[in-house]
Every structure is written in structure tokens, then in C-alpha cells.
């Protein structure tokens, strides 16, 4: 045992004044008595119990010295060496991804609960001067505690943390952890990162810059693995699409475990609020790492919910990760979107709209004079080509504005010609869009409200913008198609199809079969069907699935790759110090409380007798 601040031990000399004060205080009050004969007899009797009597008489002094000793020792901070992972300030990254919800602990606890216990142990081993940051890996990641030195707060933060049934965004998590290392109060010198995880890190998926430079941490990284090789089968895919023979369903089951497993893949459908109907129950026997697909043809082309569930065969126990044992899909028949094209004449647009599936296009001839009046009939999409309406189309109809003139609906500030080079954002609207060969003579400078996001930007301004306001979706192409070679490019139909699918979501049969479109505020939902109800919009149903091979693969990762290095599991090689001062401080306070209580009780007793004496004498007379 050693003392971290031994200088405080000098305070032990306070025992001397306590003893002196005690002796002074013990100057006894003189009381005359008729004879001390009986008192001497009494003391002779008390000699039999002398040790205890002496202790009782000196109990106050004993308690005072005990309190002083405990408090001085607490100030000197005695510590015993313990094997530990933590020897200084540390950033702990706690994996909160879906695989951490696997219940493969000895008593059925989840990996996350085991990881949390490991983190709590680290908190207990944290040296007093060190600080700990806690980062919960998830989507999005969270900072549970930043450069916190108070173990109670760290424990509280850990107790309130939860894993989510999602893949973790590891690049964001590591960036957040690196940021936490430079938080105020956290010295970057010698800081360590401890990653408590089952090793399922989706680092390879990071696109753009090189993984090794982005996914690195500015310090020593230690890896605390949790979980083992657990058997797990998952429904890895469930999708529906319209086909010539009706609706086609595709389901896939995957065995991620190390052992062959048998299960029954059951597929159910539910129409409206009706009962769930079993469509197929197929026994599967899957070798480790293999998958089996099931395709159902000729399903009715009506809106329905489809569920695929894996049930263990007789004699087989359920696996420890039920989150991926079911998958959910919604099928909505494609609907024809009524589209009103308002244009002085644009062959490119008219031909394209005629060729797009699910679009019923109407053209409005422009009046020769006067304001543009929109027809009373409802349309799902309004396309304004080089014109702008006097009033907004009725909500929630979507709007595509091409080469918009200045209007209250969309103010235009000018024209720009600097249209090269263009940069594309990572939006799904630009999927498979190749802009490299597109040339534009000039475009209009559109003022951008906050809800309108530029998707294709040029040095002079935005070329394509899209956004949603009060339930209405709006897309803007800021140039005339005739002023560009876009309609001559193969990317033109792709871009327009993407835009129309975005602006007419009901026309896409696959759009509602995934969680895409769910607001980020309701992310982290376990797989299932959900209905999103908003006062300004009709209720919409979503199917949420895990579909993550990385999370479903529960195999233990003996090491992880990070920053181009292989990181093996950490051992408690460091020597930490477990401080004893909280116990000593508590003992000291208890001793003080006991001393105070004893003193008060004696004082009350003595004053009580003194008060009684005159009355008793009077009564005797």
C-alpha cells in the first residue's frame, strides 16, 4: 500500500491537541459529599469491569482519535496496487450496435450488459486524477461522458446507456472518440482508447477517403472483446416486386453460426387488419456460412404486409440473437401519378414522361397573355418548365421546376455561367447519375431556403436542388434543358426517373418496403412494422429490418483492424491503484457522528438530572 499524498499525514499531529484538550476538558468538577466511603466501595466493585469501564469512560476520546485517524488517512489517499487496464486518462468506446444485444452471456445477459459491466470495472480502476470519456458506438454515436473524473457520474452515464438494434456508424464513432480525447480537461498526453466490443466493426464500408487515415485514433488503442462464438441464423433478405405472373416474394435465410443448423422459414402475409396467413413453411438445413433462398410467385397485387420468420426445428434451441430471426416487408401496388406539365413546349420532357412507368402526364398550354391559372383538377406532380405559377399548387402535390423564372414561389436572383466543374452530393437521387459529360450554357441563380438542399453544385451556383417543406416535395433544375446537353446524355433518363420517383413516391412499389424515409428522430427501432402518423400528412407504414450480415455474424473476433494495425485483446498488464480513501472518509464521518450522538446523549442526561434536583429537593421538604 502506498500513499498518493503523504504530506497530509502530518495532520495526524492533531491528535496531540485533541489529547491535551481532552485532558483539560477532563478537569473534573468538584462536588462535595458527606463521605466518599460508599463511592470507594462502588469503585472497588467497578474494578472487576475495569477494562470496559475505562474504555466506556474514554469512548469519546477514542471516537475522536478514530475519526481523526480515518480522515487523515483518507486525505493521504492510501492505495493498493491492482492489475488494471487503466493507468491514466482514457476514452472508453462502448459498442452499442445490434449484435451487442445477443443474449449469449452465461446467465442469458446480453453482450451489451457484459460490456457495460467491464466499463464499470474500468471506472472503479480509474486513478483519482485521471479522467474518462465514454462514447457509445451507434447510429448516431453518442458521448455519454466527456472527460469526467467523477466515478458516480460515469456509472450513472453507463447505467443509462442502451444498445440499439442498428449497425453502428463506426467512422462517426471513432471521429467522436478522437474528439473526446481532445475535450477540455482531457490531456492528450498518453491518452488511451479502450474499445469494448464484440469486434463487429463495419470499418471497411467507409467510402471516400482511405480507411486507414480516417479510421484511426490519436493514441494507444486497446480492445476488450465480449461475447463468443454463438450460433445464429438470420432472415437476411425479404423483398417483393411486381412481375408478369403477379407479385414475386424473395426471402433468404443465412446461417452465420459455426455449426450446421436446422430451422423452418415461415412466410406470412396480412392484408389490412385481417389475420396473418401462412404462405409457406420450408424446413431448412444450413451448413455454417451458407444461405438458402425462397421465391414465392403469383402473390396478389394488393397492399399487404409480409413477414418471414425463422423458427428452430424441433429439438433445437432458439439462437441467442432473436433480432434477425424475422424480416418484414410491405407491398403497395404501383400507382399512377397524375402529372401536369406546364411548358411552352419541351419534347425532351414530354417523351420522357410518356416513357416513365407509373406516370400519367397532362400538358397545360400556356395562355398567350395574363397570369398562369392552374386547373382545378388535382395532380400529384406539377412540372413547370421555364414558367412559374402565380400561386402554389395545392399541397401535398410535388413540384419540379425547370429553369424557373423569378416568382414568389422561388425567387431567382440572376443568371450564372460558371457551371463547371460540378460537384455531386451523396444523395440517393443521384444514384447512377454520371455528370462528368454534362455541359450547361447558363443557369439561374436560385435563392436557397434552408429546406432546399443543393444536390449538384457548380462554382456559379446550384444546378439541382431538392427538399421537402410542409409535406410538399420540391425539386429544381436551375437551367433549361435546351441550354445543356443533358437530354442527349444517357444519364438524363436516369436522373429524371430518380427525380420522378422522389416526387411521386407512391409510384414506386419498393419504396415503402424499407425504413427509408423514416425521420431520423425515430431511428433505432427494432425490426417490425411501424406506422408514422403526422398531423400534416396521411399516415404511412414502414417496415424496419436489420439485414446486416455484420451484426448477424456473432462470431468472436479475436482481434480487430484499426488504423492499419491489428489490435489483439488487451490483458490487465498495467498496474492500477485502487484508492481506499472513500472507505476511510466514510469511517471517519461515522466515527464523528457516533461521537456527536454519544456526547449529546450524555449532555442531555446530565442536564436532566440537574433540572430534576431542585424539584426533588422541594418535594422532599
Amino acid at each position, binding site marked *: 500500500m502506498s500513499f498518493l499524498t503523504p504530506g497530509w499525514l502530518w495532520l495526524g499531529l492533531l491528535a496531540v491537541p485533541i489529547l491535551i484538550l481532552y485532558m483539560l476538558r*477532563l478537569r*473534573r*468538577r*468538584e*462536588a*462535595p*459529599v*458527606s*463521605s*466518599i*466511603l*460508599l*463511592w*470507594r*466501595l*462502588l*469503585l472497588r*466493585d*467497578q474494578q472487576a469491569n475495569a477494562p470496559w469501564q475505562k474504555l466506556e*469512560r474514554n469512548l469519546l476520546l477514542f471516537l475522536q482519535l478514530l475519526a481523526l485517524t480515518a480522515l487523515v488517512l483518507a486525505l493521504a489517499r492510501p492505495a493498493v496496487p491492482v492489475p488494471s487496464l487503466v493507468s491514466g486518462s482514457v476514452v472508453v468506446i462502448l459498442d452499442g450496435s445490434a449484435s451487442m444485444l445477443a443474449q449469449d452471456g452465461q446467465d442469458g445477459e446480453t453482450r451489451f450488459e457484459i460490456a457495460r459491466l467491464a466499463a464499470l470495472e474500468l471506472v472503479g480502476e480509474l486513478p483519482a486524477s485521471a479522467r474518462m470519456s465514454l462514447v457509445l458506438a451507434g447510429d448516431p454515436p453518442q458521448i455519454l461522458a466527456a472527460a469526467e473524473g467523477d466515478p458516480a457520474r460515469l456509472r450513472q452515464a453507463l447505467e443509462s446507456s442502451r444498445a440499439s438494434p442498428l449497425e453502428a456508424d463506426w467512422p462517426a464513432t471513432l471521429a467522436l472518440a478522437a474528439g473526446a480525447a481532445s475535450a477540455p480537461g482531457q490531456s492528450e498526453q498518453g491518452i488511451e482508447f479502450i474499445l469494448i466490443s464484440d469486434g463487429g466493426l463495419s470499418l471497411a464500408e467507409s467510402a471516400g477517403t482511405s480507411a486507414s487515415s480516417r479510421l484511426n485514433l490519436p493514441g494507444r488503442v486497446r480492445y476488450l472483446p465480449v461475447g463468443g462464438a454463438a450460433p445464429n441464423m438470420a432472415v437476411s433478405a425479404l423483398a417483393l416486386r411486381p412481375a408478369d405472373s403477379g407479385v414475386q416474394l424473395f426471402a433468404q435465410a443465412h446461417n452465420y453460426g459455426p455449426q450446421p443448423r436446422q430451422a423452418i422459414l415461415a412466410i406470412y402475409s396480412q392484408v389490412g387488419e385481417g389475420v396473418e396467413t401462412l404462405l409457406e413453411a420450408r424446413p431448412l438445413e444450413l451448413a455454417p456460412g451458407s444461405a438458402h433462398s425462397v421465391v414465392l410467385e403469383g402473390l396478389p397485387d394488393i397492399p399487404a404486409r409480409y413477414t418471414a420468420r425463422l423458427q428452430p426445428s424441433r429439438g433445437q434451441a432458439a439462437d441467442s440473437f432473436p433480432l434477425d430471426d424475422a424480416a418484414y416487408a410491405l407491398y403497395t401496388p404501383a400507382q399512377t401519378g397524375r402529372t401536369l406539365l406546364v411548358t411552352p413546349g419541351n419534347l425532351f420532357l414530354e417523351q420522357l414522361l410518356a416513357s416513365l412507368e407509373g406516370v400519367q402526364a397532362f400538358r397545360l398550354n400556356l395562355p398567350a397573355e395574363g397570369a398562369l391559372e392552374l386547373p382545378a383538377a388535382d395532380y400529384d406532380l406539377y412540372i413547370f418548365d421555364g414558367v412559374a405559377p402565380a400561386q402554389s399548387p395545392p399541397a401535398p402535390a410535388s413540384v419540379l421546376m425547370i429553369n424557373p423564372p423569378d416568382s414568389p414561389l422561388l425567387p431567382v436572383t440572376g443568371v450564372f455561367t460558371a457551371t463547371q466543374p460540378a460537384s455531386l452530393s451523396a444523395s440517393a437521387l443521384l444514384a447512377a447519375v454520371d455528370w462528368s459529360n454534362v455541359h450547361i450554357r447558363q443557369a439561374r441563380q436560385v435563392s436557397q431556403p434552408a429546406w432546399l438542399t443543393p444536390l449538384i453544385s457548380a462554382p456559379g451556383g446550384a444546378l439541382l436542388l431538392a427538399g421537402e417543406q410542409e409535406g410538399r416535395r420540391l425539386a429544381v433544375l436551375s437551367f433549361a434543358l435546351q441550354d445543356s446537353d443533358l437530354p442527349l446524355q444517357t444519364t438524363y433518363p436516369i436522373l429524371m426517373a430518380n427525380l420522378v420517383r422522389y416526387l411521386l413516391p407512391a409510384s414506386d412499389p419498393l419504396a415503402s418496403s424499407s425504413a427509408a424515409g423514416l425521420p431520423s428522430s425515430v431511428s433505432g427501432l427494432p425490426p417490425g412494422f411501424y406506422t408514422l402518423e403526422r398531423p400534416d400528412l396521411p399516415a404511412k407504414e414502414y417496415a424496419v429490418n436489420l439485414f446486416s450480415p455484420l451484426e448477424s455474424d456473432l462470431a468472436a473476433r479475436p482481434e480487430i483492424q484499426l488504423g492499419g494495425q491489428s489490435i489483439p485483446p488487451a490483458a490487465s498488464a498495467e498496474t492500477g491503484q485502487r484508492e481506499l480513501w472513500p472507505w476511510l472518509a466514510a469511517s471517519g464521518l461515522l466515527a464523528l457522528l457516533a461521537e456527536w450522538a454519544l456526547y449529546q446523549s*450524555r449532555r442531555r*442526561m*446530565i442536564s436532566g*438530572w*440537574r433540572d*430534576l*434536583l431542585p424539584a*426533588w*429537593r422541594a418535594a*422532599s*421538604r
Partner: protein
Amino acid sequence: MLFDEATLRKLTRLTLIANQVRAGRMKGERRSSRKGASLEFADYRDYSPGDDLRRLDWKAYGRLERAFLKLFEEEEDLAVHILLDASGSMDWGEGDLHKFNYALRITGALGAIALAEGDQLSVRLLRGQGADPLESLGPLRGSGNTLRLLRYLEGLRPAGETDLSAALRRVAADRPRPGLVFLISDLLSPSSFTDGLSAFLRRGSEAAVIQVLAPDELDPPLAGDLRLLDVETGAFQEVSLDSGARRLYRQRLEAWQAELQASAVKYRARWATLSTAEPWDQVVQASLWKAGMVT
């Protein structure tokens, strides 16, 4: 005055009890088996020279011409010795609770009863290592001396250190006339009173022990860390008192009184413990009556 006329009248109706009647030198009011000169006729005997001619039965002499002397049943007096502890420890208590004042009243009461009975009364103060000859009164006889007794008692003050056993032996060494011995004391003395008392008993006396204690000696209202000062000896004793120690004190006091009483009974002495909180006149008529000291 220690007490008033009415109390005195009540007291004179009482009689001190002595189980074994002792021969007295003077006529008293106690009937004796000895024949002597008193009003109650007992017998005749022949006159012999030197006899009191006043007791000659002249009528018988006239009839028979023989001189007969009338014999009467003699009423003997009792020697009553009151040994009063005048040590410093008796100077304890306030007002009516004062032990020595209380002991003086008991002494006065017993003395008045004795004088009214015609007994021979002597009062000796026990102080120091023995009894000071100057610190005594008597022997007195006759109720006419009651006032003298009371005045004497009023002038007494307790003081000094007393070895009770030595003082009793010293008084016994004066070979007082055997009789009824009252020891009035708090008995708070390191030496046992029985040694001294036995010296009286061996000479045919009969003893009664009256212990007088103040209420705060029976249950002292003391607490805390104290330095107790003995008012008699000036000695100190340091004690730390709490409720447990007070309880132990009461237990020890009761045990000590039981030991003293057992010693007294062993010497066939009567025993009474009085608290100065009890009215003294009632004590004489009730407690001492109950203890078989007066009737």
C-alpha cells in the same frame, strides 16, 4: 428550641423499651423485682439499726411492740446513654434535611422520654478518636432537666473526623452504668461500629442503632466527571458518573446497609434507618416504635 411544648407532651407519653430491666440506684418509674421504698407495699421485716425510721410501721409497733419496717416494691431507674455522632459527615444536608440537626431532634426526643420516665440520661458526643469528656451531658434525672438537655443539644455543632469504633471503645472504657445505649450516627466511618458497641454489650447494656442519612446520600443527584470531596476527611475521589454508575451506587448502598443491619442483629441490637426526608416526630412515634425502641 428543637421542638415545641406540644411535641414534648406527646413524647413524654412514650417509654423507652429495655428488654432486660437493670437494677437502678435511684427510684424510677420502672417496677423492679427488688424490694425498696416506694408507694406500693410489698412486705415487712424486722427493724435493724440504721434503717430509715420514716419507713417504720408505727401502728404495728403500737400493737405488737415490735419494730417492723415496711417494705415496698422498688421502682428502679434505667441508665440511658445516647451516643451521638458529631463527625463532619453529619454536617450534611440543607434545612430540615440536615443530618446533624435531625439527629439532635431524635436525641432530644429520646432524652426527653428518658427524663420523663425518671431514667438516668447521659448524652455523649462521638468525635475524633474518642469521646471528649467535655462533650457530654449528664447523667441527668427527672423531667426537670429536659430544658437543660434541649439547650445543651442546641449548642452542638458537628465537626472533625471520627473513628466510630475507636470513639465507642473510648466511651465504653469509662465503664458507664449498664443500661440502654442509643447510637445515633450515619455510620459513614471506615471502621465498624460493632467493635465499639460490643464493649457496651459485654457489660450488660442493651443497644439500639439509629442510622441517619440524607436523601441525596440515598440517591445522589450527581453526574458527569467529578472530583468528590469528603467534607469530613477532606479526601478526594474521582468518579465518572452516568445512569449506570448511579444504579450501581444505589445497589452498593443497599448492600452496605444490609451488612450493617446484619451486624447489629448479631449483637441483638435494634436497628432503624432514617432518612432526613421523613418528619422526625413521626419517625419517633412510628419508625422507632416499629423498630421496638419506644412504646
